């Protein structure tokens, strides 16, 4: 089979648009799922049976629904526009995983940390803000890296409601020119580069925050 890379060049504008949309979707969904997941994870770390059960229910429900089901529900049933449904599906889906990661981070900080701070006279909020949260963020950086990469990969599903992101454009090239291999190669390279950039950035952050 003769490869024809010119087709990629021909479609460069479409691919660039697709990549831009993928980056846009990924970045905002990443920020959103981090914020929402951290909030839910912190609630799960609060004392109290009720909040813990509520958070567990949130995590289980959202984690057990395929992200595409969420997308279809938000797009077809709720009637959001395609981009909004995409953002919301990606954010809620990943926030469940992030919440779980954050909650387990809280569980792995030794009990003495908050006890020592409470005895010194700190308020519960101060203990949370100055003692627990900074430690939790250091602990969860490695598992969060995987979560962030997952967001980028999942972003491809929004093509199913017509958002013309990277995977959509690659498939479009295939259907218009039958050059599926070339198109898919470019899309693959883009996803790999984004994932590497995330992993690299997180590794850098980890080194900066490393416990000396």
């Amino acid at each position, binding site marked *: 089979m003769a490869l024809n890379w010119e087709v990629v060049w021909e479609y460069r504008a479409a691919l660039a648009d697709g990549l831009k949309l993928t980056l846009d979707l990924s970045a905002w969904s990443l920020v959103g799922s981090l914020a929402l997941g951290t909030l839910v994870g912190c609630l799960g770390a609060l004392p109290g049976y009720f909040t813990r059960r509520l958070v567990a229910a949130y995590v289980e429900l959202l984690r057990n629904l395929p992200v595409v089901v969420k997308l279809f529900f938000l797009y077809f049933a709720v009637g959001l526009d395609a981009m909004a449904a995409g953002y919301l599906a990606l954010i809620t889906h990943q926030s469940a995983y992030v919440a779980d990661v954050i909650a387990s981070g809280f569980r792995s900080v030794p009990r*003495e*940390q908050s006890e020592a*701070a*409470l*005895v010194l*006279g*700190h*308020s519960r909020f101060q203990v949370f803000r*100055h003692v627990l949260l900074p430690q939790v963020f250091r602990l969860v950086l490695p598992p969060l890296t995987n979560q962030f990469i997952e967001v980028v990969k999942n972003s491809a599903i929004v093509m199913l409601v017509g958002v013309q992101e990277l995977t959509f454009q690659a498939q479009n090239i295939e259907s218009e020119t039958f050059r599926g291999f070339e198109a898919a190669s470019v899309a693959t390279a883009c996803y790999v580069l984004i994932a590497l950039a995330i992993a690299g950035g997180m590794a850098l952050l980890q080194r900066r925050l490393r416990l*000396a």
Partner: protein
Amino acid sequence: MAEPIIAFAGVSKWFGKAQVLRDIDLAVEAGSVVVICGPSGSGKSTLLRCICGLEEAQAGSIRVMGRQLDAKALSDRAFRANIGMVFQRFSLYPHMKVLANLTLAPRKVRGLSPGAAEERARAMLARVGLSDKLEAWPSQLSGGQQQRVAIARALVMEPRIMLFDEPTSALDPEMIREVLDVMRDLARSGMTMAVVTHEMGFAREAADRVVFMDEGRIVEQADASAFFAQPASERARRFLDNILQH
């Protein structure tokens, strides 16, 4: 006579169905050193934790520094900060250097300026002999040094009572002495101390009173010299035999 700085009257506590403190009566005079000993699971740590409010008793009354330890007293952070506590381990904040470990509470609880807090921190580090470790991370310190920093961190708050919950139990043998030396100095300075420990040498030397607990009860309490000369109870005699002759 002045009111004892710590006074337990008929204190009981349960964890679920298990009773961990049974009808505890205890009086600690200001400026005295009390060592609490006994087999593991006898309620020693729980008793300490009741003094600083980490646990709440379910029956009886606890008065500390002349104040009933009720919900109102326990939510008074400035009051609580008058009681310092040193744990067995894991209590230094690993994400902060020694200086920040020492200045966080003075700044956030006492409202000191960073400069004033640092001045106090330096003084207390000097007191525990670690002036050169101001800029160190906790993970760069030995276990003994970490415990001394933990003591300094409690002292920075200028507490009136210091509680020690097995401060040397997690240490390598060669580091125990440096921690006990700091505690002996503190005892000589007139600090009120309640110490849960198995270090009977320390108890013999530094304690005024010894409290022996078993199964949530105070089995015996006596002046340290009397206790070590001849424990009154058979149970305490056996305990001392076991830990002095292993």
